[in-house]
């Protein structure tokens, strides 16, 4: 809709699903999705800035409405972490979970912005290809999942020592018998590979699919009066349902982060 004269479904979809890129070096790998990075940074700075501004004026007396809201969110996450992680959660795991939840929730929530109106606004700003939702970029979700994966390995080594971690890799889950070592190792390697993949692809898939549905509804709305009427109703319905998906996916992503980090702290 925003791209002008020759509007076909393909060009519409492609327009909405193309990132704004910027090359930072030689080769395909050295490109940067500027929209993903800028949107995620903006959202992160906004939400963590908000949290910080509330926390800076936090009182231990009767809290104001904003502080009560932040405390509600923080205590919700703290409760979740408490039930999963048995250690000093305040040192790292709980605040990290808060970071993951708030950031992913905000990035997912961008999906609720009306895509074509946003495209129009971006066009006015001179940004032809600009995607609002960072979590529909596999790079964003994979970056989060890989960071969690690295933290998992870091805590494994920190808590159990390097030897302890290697011992766990080759001796669990089947047993200490040297004959079982390759099997154990293979098993653990599969687990270590599948964890970040499932972690990131689950979030990416859900949000990406949600965006595609919005695009399909938008396309239908462009076909005529009936399409506009049904497109409006369906669009509203899907948006309301999507609120659930956005929150749920952010919650799942946070819980998996906590679970992975807890498993790294516990010996089998």
């Amino acid at each position, binding site marked *: 809709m925003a791209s002008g004269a020759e509007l076909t479904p393909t060009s519409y979809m492609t327009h909405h699903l193309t990132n704004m890129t910027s090359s930072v070096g030689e080769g395909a*790998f050295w490109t940067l999705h500027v929209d993903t990075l800028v949107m995620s940074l903006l959202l992160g700075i906004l939400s963590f800035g908000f949290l910080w501004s509330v926390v800076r004026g936090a009182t231990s007396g009767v809290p104001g409405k904003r502080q009560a809201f932040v*405390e509600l969110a923080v205590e919700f996450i703290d409760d979740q972490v408490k039930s999963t992680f048995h250690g000093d959660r305040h040192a790292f795991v709980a605040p990290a979970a808060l970071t993951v939840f708030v*950031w992913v929730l905000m990035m997912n929530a961008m999906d609720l912005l009306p895509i074509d109106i946003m495209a129009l606004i971006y066009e006015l700003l001179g940004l032809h290809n600009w995607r609002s939702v960072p979590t529909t*970029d596999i790079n964003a979700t*994979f970056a989060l999942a*890989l*960071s969690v994966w690295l933290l998992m390995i870091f805590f494994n080594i920190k808590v159990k020592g390097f030897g302890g971690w290697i011992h766990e890799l080759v001796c669990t889950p089947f047993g200490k018998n040297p004959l079982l070592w390759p099997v154990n190792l293979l098993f653990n390697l599969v687990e270590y590979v599948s964890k970040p993949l499932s972690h990131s692809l689950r979030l990416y898939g859900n949000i990406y699919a949600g965006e595609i549905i919005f695009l399909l509804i938008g396309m239908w709305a462009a076909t005529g009066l009936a399409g506009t009427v049904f497109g409006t109703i369906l669009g509203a319905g899907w948006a309301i349902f999507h609120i659930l998906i956005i929150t749920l996916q952010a919650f799942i992503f946070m819980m998996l982060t906590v679970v992975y980090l807890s498993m790294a702290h516990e010996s089998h």
Partner: protein
Amino acid sequence: MNINFTLFSQAAAFAVFIWFTVKFVWPPLMRAIEDRQKTIADGLAAGERGKHELELSSHRSADVLKEAKQRASVIIAQAEKRASQIIEEAKGTAKDEGNRILVGAKAEVEQEVFRAKETLRQQVADLAVAGAAKILRREVDAKTHADLLTSIRAEL
């Protein structure tokens, strides 16, 4: 859809945000929440203590009240006893006083009677002498028979 350098920039941003939350967001808020929890717990404990003390002091006040009532009833009984004693004493004194007054009055009455008798006797004697004098006008000389007349007056 392709993996590229965005991955690293995103991971770096993630690391910074985690660091920020761990360092600046989580601890102050947790401190505020824990302080409040402590305040509330202290308040509840104080309330519990106050309730306990109220119970104790109400027991004590009931005891004091009971004792006071007992003492009051003892004092009342003593007062009643004393009152009846005083009444008895007063009755005794009044009786004595009455008797005394009666005795005095009787004595006075007797005295009066005696005096009246005396006066009467005097008058009767005078009358008798006067009568006798009338009868014996010539023979009797008052001067010569003064002794006789006085003795008669005394006998009457």
